[in-house]
């Protein structure tokens, strides 16, 4: 796969003309004789392109966005306070419902935080299995995102259906292992809920090497060089690196802006240090680069999974005799983060020594990545805001919590 404009290094010469700086919000006087009034459009919360119940109050000058106000909270479920009412174990199934496209990495982030708080060691085999499942979640998420992004561009369904078709195959495997397609609830303090059978791993390996590889090639041929896609995404919604860093953007969106920051490499958590994978870095920070980040991360994740399956040691899938129910950590607090498919997903836990967390706080990548939405949309047309929002990759379950 050779993407035209994205490279693995942070600074390669740009093939594209630099994007014009985003126009300031006050493009024209409001009651300009010739141009008439500004128009305020409320997009959402039921708009199909807003990926859930999200609303954008967009102020338009003709077709150009001059102001954008995101409105969210429609899916608020009091996640954090519910977790503070429950035992530590009982919060795991709730984390499934944060970013419900990648529940496995949510589980992982939470479980790691508790392990750090209590000081639980994880067996080597469990770490390998966690990496396999985490990367599988990343692939599922990115396959979905690519489909939905193309749907937002108006391809009405073809690439999305191809993506969902492959995702179904992976979800079949996930269901077989965890009992649920999306609400996996599979990670436990000290390891996993159950061992992963060898034939399951073999089937996953076979699928990734054959069916999924075919899908990647197909999607690449179908989309990456497509002139309409290029015209609709290149230089659209540019996010400058300085702004991305100061806004706390993370994940593929940050890397698309050319900032080489991947928590798997920076923190080297779990056993990622043993995996020589590459992290794609973008050049322009536009929608096209964000799309390419996902396309390029998928083969890397496949490679990690293949290596992990090959090197998988035997041993325990969970620390023997590890208590999960009725856990009472000592007084203290911790923050732990991992590289989720959407960015840095972290959990801040404060324990007061009882069986319930005193404070439970989620750092949701979707919400924080959304904060730069207005900066990316100003000066673009209304049709582009839909694409820009699609390229941010949000899941409202996580934004609203």
């Amino acid at each position, binding site marked *: 796969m050779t993407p035209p404009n994205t490279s693995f290094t942070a600074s390669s010469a740009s093939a594209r003309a630099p994007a014009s700086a985003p126009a300031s919000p006050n493009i024209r006087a409001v009651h300009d004789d010739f141009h008439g009034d500004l128009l305020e459009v409320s997009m959402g919360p039921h708009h199909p392109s807003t990926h859930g119940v999200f609303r954008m109050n967009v102020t338009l000058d003709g077709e150009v966005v001059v102001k954008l106000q995101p409105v969210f909270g429609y899916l608020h479920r009091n996640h954090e306070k519910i977790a503070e009412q*429950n*035992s530590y*174990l*009982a*919060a*795991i*199934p*709730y984390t499934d419902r944060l970013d419900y496209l990648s529940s496995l990495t949510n589980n992982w982030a939470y479980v790691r935080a508790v392990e750090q708080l209590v000081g639980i060691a994880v067996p080597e085999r469990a770490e390998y299995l966690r990496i396999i499942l985490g990367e599988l979640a990343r692939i599922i998420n990115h396959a979905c995102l690519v489909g939905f992004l193309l749907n937002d561009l108006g391809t009405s369904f*073809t690439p999305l259906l*191809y993506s969902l078709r492959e995702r179904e195959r992976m979800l079949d495997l996930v*269901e*077989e*292992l*965890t*009992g*649920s397609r999306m*609400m996996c*609830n599979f990670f436990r303090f000290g390891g996993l*809920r*159950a061992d992963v059978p060898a034939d399951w791993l073999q089937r996953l390996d076979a699928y990734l090497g054959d069916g999924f590889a075919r899908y990647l090639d*197909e999607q690449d*041929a*179908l*989309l990456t*060089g*497509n*002139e*309409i*896609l*290029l015209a609709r995404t290149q230089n659209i919604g540019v996010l400058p690196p300085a702004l991305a860093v100061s806004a706390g953007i993370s994940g593929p969106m940050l890397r698309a802006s050319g900032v080489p920051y991947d928590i798997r490499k920076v923190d080297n958590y779990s056993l990622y240090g043993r995996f020589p994978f590459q992290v794609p870095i973008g050049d322009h920070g536009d929608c096209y680069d964000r799309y390419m980040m996902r396309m390029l991360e998928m083969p890397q994740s496949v490679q990690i999974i293949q290596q992990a399956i090959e090197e998988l040691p035997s041993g325990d899938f969970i620390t023997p005799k590890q208590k*999960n*129910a*009725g856990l009472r950590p000592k007084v203290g607090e911790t923050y732990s983060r991992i590289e989720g498919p959407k960015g840095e997903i972290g959990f801040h836990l404060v324990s007061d020594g009882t069986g319930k967390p005193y404070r439970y706080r989620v750092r949701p990548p979707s919400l924080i990545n959304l904060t730069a939405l207005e900066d990316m949309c100003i000066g673009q047309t209304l049709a582009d805001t839909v694409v820009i929002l699609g390229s941010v990759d949000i899941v409202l379950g996580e934004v609203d919590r």
Partner: protein
Amino acid sequence: MLGTGILKGLFITAKNLVGSYYDKERLTTLQYPEEAANIPENYRNFPFLVFDGEDAVSTLRCVACKMCEKECPPQCIYIVSEKDEKGKIMRRPKVFDIDISVCMGCGICAEVCPSSAIKMDHIFEVTAKDRFSDLLLHRDQLAKSVDYYKQIHPTDFAVEEKARAEKKRVAEEKAQAAAAATAAKAAAAAKTATAATPKTDVAKAATATAAV
């Protein structure tokens, strides 16, 4: 050349269109009510209670320890233990309700249960006429026989039975060893007794030591 990307894409969609009629792998649609999908063993939906014998109430495995009630994330389990006439708590639930309109199917109850009494079911076609009362399942509605459990979770059942047999064997061996030890002790005591007070009845002394 402008447009080659689009042509390439159209070729792929055409290939997929044709494939969707002939490719075996692609013909995955099931005619749902007539054809049932294959449900994997680990599939979980709502919990049910397992009973071992003929009578659902008296052979229920549940000992009303309330572990599941405590750990259930949305707190949708409600248990009241049975009491005998004197008010002493018996190891049996009098009330065991699960509100399946609240249950999130997480399977934590099945995981924490120390007596393998609550398990995850495979049914997914649940209908009710009333939103509240019909979805609050009681003990008798939740109880299902161990044969049903064996049928839907053959692997788990086999593992559990093996563990149970092992436990029983260990317990029996322990009991035997304990009995042997008592016997040996009794014999030793009897010997000492005989040595100290030769006139005493040996058997009587041995029984007395064993009783202690």
